[in-house]
């Protein structure tokens, strides 16, 4: 699904300075866009607004044909059809891998659920780990479970917050290419946040550069990063 953000401004309660200032971004269906910027530039905040986890923003956000944020509208996060992989994955520690992935499939029948979980485990290459608890997995494996969990309900778009920040640098390179494969297979509009240029080069079609809450550049990877 395409995503359209217009004049988005956001203040955290009690802060005088806006965390996001007048952001305008348009993203095509199936595109992989990176949000790049230093720590504290507002990257996570932007994702949380798209996801609906923050709701006091002014401006407009549309996902597909659906206006999820506007002057008189706010769609709850659980109704937006958006998937998200959190910075520290947030896998439910009391559920096995299987149950984590199935958590977003509550509308399916048991049989459909089983099938979908199996598909997702295949997609991320973790079939043997279905019955493990998150803490029994390595960092890279946890990250793939988080990805599988977010993709399982077939979201219209996928948000990734610093997907590699918790991994060793060797692993980062390997996972980057895996992630690219998975995203291409899943064919989902993706926004991912990073502060690493290499991530942007390896994965993104376009990049939006944030600085102190403002969008300073938006465009093709090499142009925008130079």
């Amino acid at each position, binding site marked *: 699904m395409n995503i359209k953000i217009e004049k988005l401004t956001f203040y955290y309660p009690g802060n005088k300075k806006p965390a996001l200032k007048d952001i305008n971004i348009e993203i095509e269906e199936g595109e992989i866009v990176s949000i790049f910027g230093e720590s504290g530039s507002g990257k996570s905040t932007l994702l949380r607004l798209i996801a609906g*986890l923050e709701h006091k923003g002014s401006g407009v956000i549309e996902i597909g044909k659906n206006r999820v944020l506007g002057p008189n509208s706010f769609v709850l996060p659980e109704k937006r059809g958006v*998937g998200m992989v959190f910075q*520290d994955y947030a896998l439910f*520690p009391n559920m096995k891998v299987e149950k984590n992935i199935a958590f977003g499939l*509550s509308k399916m029948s048991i049989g459909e659920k089983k099938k979908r979980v199996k598909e997702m485990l295949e997609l991320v290459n973790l079939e043997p780990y279905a019955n493990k608890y998150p803490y029994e997995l390595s960092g890279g494996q946890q990250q793939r479970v988080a990805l599988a969990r977010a993709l399982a309900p077939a979201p219209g778009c996928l948000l990734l917050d610093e997907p590699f920040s918790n991994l060793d640098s060797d692993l980062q390179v390997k996972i980057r290419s895996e992630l690219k494969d998975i995203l291409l297979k899943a064919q989902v509009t993706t926004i991912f946040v990073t502060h690493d240029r290499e991530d942007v080069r390896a994965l993104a079609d376009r990049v939006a550069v944030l600085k102190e809450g403002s969008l300073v550049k938006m465009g093709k990877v090499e142009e925008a990063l130079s």
Partner: protein
Amino acid sequence: MLKRKPGFYGFASTIIAILLIFPFGDLILQLFEKPNENWMEIKEFLLKDYIGNTLILVFFTAILALIIGTTLAWLISAYDFPLRKFFRWALILPLAIPSYILAYTYAAMASYTGVVQVTLRSLLGTGLDQRYFNIMSMPGAVFVLSLSLMPYIYMILRAFMEGQSASLIECGRMLGKSHLGIFLKVVVPVSRAALVAGTSLVVLEVLSDYGVASYFGIQTFSTAIFRSWFSLGDIDSAIRLAAILMVFVLVLLFLEKILRGRRSYSMTNTKHCPLSRKKLRGPMAILATSYASIILLLGFLIPVGQLTYWAILTYKDTLGVEAWVLSLNTLWVAVISAIIILVFGIIIANYSRLKNNFLSKIYSKISLLGYSIPGAVVAITMILFFIHLDRWLAPLYKIILPGAPGLVLSMSLVLLIGAYVLRFLAVGFQSIDGGFERIGRKYHDASKMLGHGEVSTFFKIDLPMLKPALLSGFTLVCIDVIKELPLALILRPFNFNTLATRVFDYANDERIPEASVPSLLIVLIVAAGILILNKTLDKEKNNEHKN
């Protein structure tokens, strides 16, 4: 869907907060009435004593409990000596004996016919002179209260030392400081916030104490409040005394805030390595073990031994159907109070976690309030409030309960349970709030991103992850309710007894040995609760290391 929908949690939190502070309105209104003659007399002659006695009791108890609590915590977390592992948890056990039971037991043991005097007479041919050795005195009350409250300081400080201060202590060692030097120069300053938190708990408990002071004949605020109301029927003076006591408490809370500084004593999440303990040898090891043993003996083993001995003498008369009824009464009042408290606690803590705004902060503060309010004040507040409530509801009673006596709610258990909820909500709320803090928001957010609404997220994600916090909150509230005396004594419906009130009644009739069976039942139930709690907390700590 509109932006600002008043949520369930906000609405429910507001109702609970109003329920919690509303009763105090009555109390404050009464203060503006013209004082009666009795009050003039109290103000002129007695108030000085009440203030003096209360301050002396609070001050010396706090000091003694601090000395015992800190030295034990330091000993257990920095040294290795015979039986250390055992003492580590056993030193919490004095908390299982309510201070009034400790008081009755020691008083009876030290009396002319008690075990202490009899033994001395048979050994030395002469007893101690009661003029110099009288436990039913101010020093005796300090002794009893500090023994039974010292575990608060010990537990908070031990947790702190085993946790984040370890690296600082290690630093101190590297810099070549002696152990005592480290204790005074490093441990005491960094654990200031923990020390203040523990001490203020002890002080609040002393201010709330009724059982020890009244039995030992010491006139404190709490005993004076009860006496004005129930012996003299002077409600007005009781309310005024309660108001003055509340001023004390507010000053104390203010002091606590200043002394604690900006650091809160809760653990940060930084990784910490456990403190490596120094092994004690020879005389030092014997000294350490003896010190811990003496405290455990005085605070738990001796009184429990004496109670057991009495129980063996009296159980034929006291361990019958009645003991079962008492235990059941006690347990179900505790369980119902704890359940209500947990539900209220979950609502307010969740609101504060999800919104984190000005209003939610106020609600959190209100939930914590009750624990600072001494039992005597809570009792008066609740009675006044319920009597007014009953008057107000009288027309309704006429319709639905024709022929009922005027005071329906005030004469029922609702009054007592309401008072427990008001007083101990803080205990449950803090556990739950701590639990939510540990979980954070991320699982909640993740669940919403996977299409689950507020209700489904709560039952599928929050509640299961909150289980350890709920369990410890539940246990803590139950322990407090089971041990509690003054509220039960005053607010119980006619003919309703709990273990605690039965102990008090026996003691008041000078039938201390007969009190031993209900006393031991309290100690057993509470000790079991404490041990369960200790286990879950340790397990949780291990789990955190695993993650």
